[in-house]
């Protein structure tokens, strides 16, 4: 194997093994920052030795053995660490490098638990969102600092600093390495899902050009979501998020036109939708629903996405169902934007008058004051009701509120069409 080949292989092994490695070492040393350093030591050892000795048959076990050995060294050298840790160290020394099959299975469960603990710690609410995102991609996604920096279009030192500070915060606040329980669990799960969806959106909205690392973010987020779904299979919102991401990802190929312009959902060529991802998304939604209880916000958004995914053409969309899902969503996460979307769904199901009635309740909402889609939607309803002069006014207002030249053009075009119809 050539030098670059072996390096790419080691990168691949790192992608597969690093999260479990860091999680296992965190359990030993009780400090995520130290665990990551030890994991990096193991990686360095691999980079030194594997080009000569070849990749071992069980690379994960090899890396863990090195990491644990370094952990023992650390604990011996550091008299500040607990006696308890010294006992753990002694235990490690007396175990074999490759355990018996039954022990291996028991360890397997431990690995899952450790990984879940790592997920929760990387997404801990004591950290800023940016820090959580960077730490998650680093510790769980196996991305390098450079890859994370390129993905978010910030300089590498910025990300490096962010990660260093995040680890320090976790250590200073003595954040425990455990799976949250009871009342705390729901909020902590939410925190994890928020991080993963943020990563997904960063990739979804930036399906562009020079840097392929950005659309890869969708794939990284999907992968993380799927991993968490297996670690926490009884959490319906995890399956809800996975479902939402699978279905949104199914549209990646249909979202961009020939000259790079975005195509909205209702105008997309559905034969370009990835049906495998849609099936996976529907299956994940079913998992969420079969766990019982009221659907949470991610599951509801997924259910809305599923309605679109199931419709073979835009005309076959079950708008009534979408409208009632938005209503349920409004109960769980009330927001004027959810109401606006509900109004659109209602108008598709029951006609523009019904939609207009709902939108009219939103016109004095302060959060929507600068939101061009509000007058745009209202203008559309008025146009469909034949109130062309009022429609023109709204569409021109919407045009003045958007900074995007192409969108402004489209809105002004629609306004002009209304002016003509008004004269006719």
């Amino acid at each position: 194997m050539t030098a670059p080949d072996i390096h790419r292989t080691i990168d691949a092994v790192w992608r597969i093994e690093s999260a479990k490695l860091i999680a296992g070492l965190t359990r030993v040393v009780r400090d995520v920052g130290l665990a990551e350093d030890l994991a990096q030591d193991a990686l360095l050892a691999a980079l030194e030795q594997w080009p000569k000795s070849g990749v071992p048959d069980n690379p994960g076990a090899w890396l863990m053995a090195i990491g644990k050995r370094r952990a023992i060294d650390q604990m011996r050298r550091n008299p500040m660490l607990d006696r308890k840790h010294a006992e753990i160290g002694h235990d490690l020394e007396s175990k074999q490098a490759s355990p018996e099959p039954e022990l291996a299975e028991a360890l397997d469960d431990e690995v899952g638990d450790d990984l879940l603990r790592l997920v929760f710690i990387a997404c801990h609410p004591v950290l800023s969102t940016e820090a959580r995102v960077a730490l998650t991609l680093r510790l769980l996604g196996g991305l390098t600092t450079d890859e994370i920096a390129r993905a978010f279009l910030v300089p590498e030192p910025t990300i490096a600093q962010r990660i260093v500070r995040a680890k320090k915060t976790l250590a200073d606040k003595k954040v425990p390495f455990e799976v949250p329980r009871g009342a705390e669990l729901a909020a902590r799960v939410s925190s994890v899902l928020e991080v993963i969806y943020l990563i997904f959106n960063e990739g979804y909205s930036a399906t562009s050009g020079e840097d392929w690392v950005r659309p890869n973010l969708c794939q990284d987020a999907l992968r993380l979501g799927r991993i968490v779904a297996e670690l926490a299979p009884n959490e319906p919102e995890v399956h809800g998020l996975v479902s939402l991401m699978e279905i949104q990802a199914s549209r990646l190929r249909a979202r961009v036109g020939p000259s790079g312009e975005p195509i909205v959902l209702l105008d997309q060529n559905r034969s370009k939708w990835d049906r495998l991802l849609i099936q996976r998304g529907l299956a994940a939604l079913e998992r969420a629903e079969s766990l019982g209880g009221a659907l949470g916000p991610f599951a509801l958004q997924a259910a809305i996405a599923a309605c679109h995914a199931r419709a073979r053409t835009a005309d076959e969309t079950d708008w009534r169902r979408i409208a009632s899902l938005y209503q349920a969503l409004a109960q769980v996460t009330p927001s004027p934007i959810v109401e606006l979307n509900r109004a659109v769904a209602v108008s598709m199901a029951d006609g523009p008058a019904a939609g207009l009635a709902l939108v009219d309740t939103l016109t004095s909402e302060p959060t929507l004051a600068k939101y061009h889609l509000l007058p745009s939607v209202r203008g559309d309803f008025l146009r469909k009701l034949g109130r062309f002069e009022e429609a023109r006014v709204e569409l021109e207002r919407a045009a003045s509120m958007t900074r995007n030249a192409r969108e402004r053009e489209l809105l002004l075009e629609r306004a002009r069409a209304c002016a003509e119809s008004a004269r006719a």
Partner: protein
Amino acid sequence: MRFMVMIKANAKSEAGVMPSERLLTEMGKFNEELVKAGVLLAGEGLHPSSKGTRVRFSGSSRTVIDGPFPETKELVAGFWLIQVSSKEEAIEWVKRIPNPDGDDGEVEIRQVFDAEDFGAEFTTEARALEERMRSELASRGTSG
């Protein structure tokens, strides 16, 4: 990146011989590992070629040929569709496919064409619109 991983047939699979219990168990665990790692998209086993058929094309003519087919080592006996970060990662996963009975065999890895391969690109303006739409809508419970 997506890859199709194809397990090639052998005399046993073509003869319809059931895999050993050990192989079934270990294959089950391997599939579980793929799922737990978030990389498995799909995977199935195929019936032997004795149940298969080929349709040969030549211009407008179509010839239907029933199996079994002779070139055992070239036949596909099963496949996985996986989503991984690189071809090297695909190779690492494939190396982990269990082979407890010590059989000879071959697994082929082929990359699947992705959206990026077709070169769709956003203009800066279009991307700005998309980003604003997404950031405004996405966190408020709507999808597009």
